């Protein structure tokens, strides 16, 4: 079985984001970019499936600007076998919307015929949480989102999902789209031997136009603004004082 893992190049989670002066978005010029952390978890899970003998090949795919190559190299250095880059924008500030990404992925799936698409539940830049679901719909495949545990067994997979207030276990027919949640696994560091090998692994490049997908935005960003700053807290000297303060505020 082939596993396809879509990975997105996003602003590094350690970077303190700055809103552009005109409010049109977040400043990405000269900012450290990394693989979306949920996608890293998806890559890790796919590699584990391969190590467990349940997958034969792990293919990473990224859609966006040319620089997403670096993100794919990271996936290769973690242990993916090969990579596909779909260039869909040349301005780093242009975000490709979930529907366009899902349509492109559907084309890649048609070409590659994977038995499983393992993606991150959402990208930490715009938190859309939509691509995996849209892809499953376009393909007519089963889907299991927010995976906390994945057990692939022949023609089906048992997936434990993180849902409000607990966990839910579902059994889905393969092929399927599974999206990774935070606690699915702890991604490995790239190993030095794999870093050295990554360059030699195949990375093919196509464009969205090659695949006939229109990536023109359908959503309009009205305004981007900094979150309100939190007011400073206070220190209390004892539990009694804490309880008194909470009562005062009407919280308890």
């Amino acid at each position, binding site marked *: 079985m082939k596993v396809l893992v879509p990975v997105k190049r996003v602003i590094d989670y350690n970077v303190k984001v700055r809103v552009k002066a005109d409010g049109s978005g977040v400043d990405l010029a000269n900012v450290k970019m990394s693989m979306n952390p949920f996608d890293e978890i998806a890559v890790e899970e796919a590699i584990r499936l391969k190590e467990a003998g349940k997958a034969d090949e792990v293919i990473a795919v990224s859609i966006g600007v040319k620089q997403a190559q670096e993100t794919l190299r*990271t996936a290769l*250095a973690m242990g993916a076998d090969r990579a596909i880059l779909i260039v869909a924008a040349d301005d780093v500030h242009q975000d490709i919307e979930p529907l366009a990404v899902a349509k492109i992925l559907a084309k890649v799936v048609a070409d590659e015929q994977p038995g499983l698409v393992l993606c991150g539940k959402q990208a930490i830049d715009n938190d859309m949480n939509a691509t995996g679901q849209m892809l499953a719909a376009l393909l007519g495949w089963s889907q299991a989102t927010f995976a906390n545990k994945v057990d692939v067994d022949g023609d089906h997979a048992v997936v434990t999902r993180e849902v409000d207030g607990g966990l839910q276990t579902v059994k889905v027919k393969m092929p399927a789209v599974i999206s990774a949640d935070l606690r699915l696994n702890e991604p490995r560091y*790239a*190993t*030095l031997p*794999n*870093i050295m090998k*990554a360059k030699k692994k195949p990375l093919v490049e196509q464009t969205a136009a090659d695949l006939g997908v229109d990536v023109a935005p359908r959503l309009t960003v009205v305004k981007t603004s900094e979150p309100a700053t939190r007011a400073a807290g206070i220190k209390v000297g004892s539990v009694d004082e804490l309880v008194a303060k909470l009562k005062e505020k009407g919280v308890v």
Partner: protein
Amino acid sequence: MHFGLTEEQEMIVSTVRSFVENEIYPHEAEVERSGAVPPGLGEEIKRKCIEMGFYACNFPEEVGGAGLSHLDFTLVERELGRGSMALTHFFGRPQNILMACKGEQRERYLLPAVRGERMDALAMTEPDAGSDVRGMKCMGVRDGGDWVVNGSKHFISGADHADFFIVFIATGVDETPHGPKKRITCFLVDRGTPGFEVRPGYNSVSHRGYKNCILYFDDCRLPDAQVLGEVDGGFAVMNEWLYATRLTVATFSVGRARRCFDHALAYAAERKQFGQQIAKFQGVSFQIADMITEIDAADWLTLSGAWRLDQGLPANREIASAKLYATEMLARVTDATLQIHGGMGLMDDLPIERFWRDARVERIWDGTSEIQRHIIGRELFRPLGA
């Protein structure tokens, strides 16, 4: 000329950086507080580093290392330099002088060191012989086929965790027109060798938890099989293998300065006095401008020294310049960062006072600033007969 990193180098840098941020930073406060590496943590860092294939990455592939070039390795160490030395010590980088191991020494010292099974420490300095290495008093005397060693070494870093020691010992004296000159031999000494003892050293303001020890030799008997290199060939192995270690100090200094700088930059942009961000005062922003200029200069100087080694070009003067400039830069950058933080800079709630303290030793070990200047001057003037 090309100033960019290759894709591999970019990945090496980002991998080591995230390792340091995720596996080292979270434990630093505890090391500072307790002055020691929490039990088991060193082993855990070591295990992860071995799994990642980074352990002993400075060694050639034929002995089990990763065969990194000097430049690649300098980049690895630059990122390690950001973290606490007590902890990054376990991101193992055995002394490359072990490549001088011959015959069964390879199985006993070199290969286990590369595999992370045995840790090493290097001992040259003595209470009465620091910069003047040749002035050492620790002496080996022939007795049968063995050497009987007496004397001591101090300031020996990492000795608390070392399984064996690479020790420079005087093994004779030559009479020369300039007076007596000691012959030096390098020995491999196992912990537990009779007559050899490792005792706790001093407490240092720099690098808490990264301990130094005192080594005592009391009629310690060492056979010729323990000689690394040739008898009386201590300076030869030292010169062949040890002069690149100054690049370690230089690149560590650059990494730490960059981490420190990020604090200075963020604080200057946030802290408000007189109704505005302090970065708006030129008195502050000019300090920041000088800092980044010096950091970049030290970074390039250091990387170019490593590059020269890879090209097989003479590098002694350049490496001395890198060690000198990077460590003095670090002192200025940490001091200015502290100044920009005002009183808070001195408090151990922030890591700034630690960066400032840690910076101090860099100008002293691996050859003081004065010794580096001496080397630079000698390299420049010797050809001129001065």
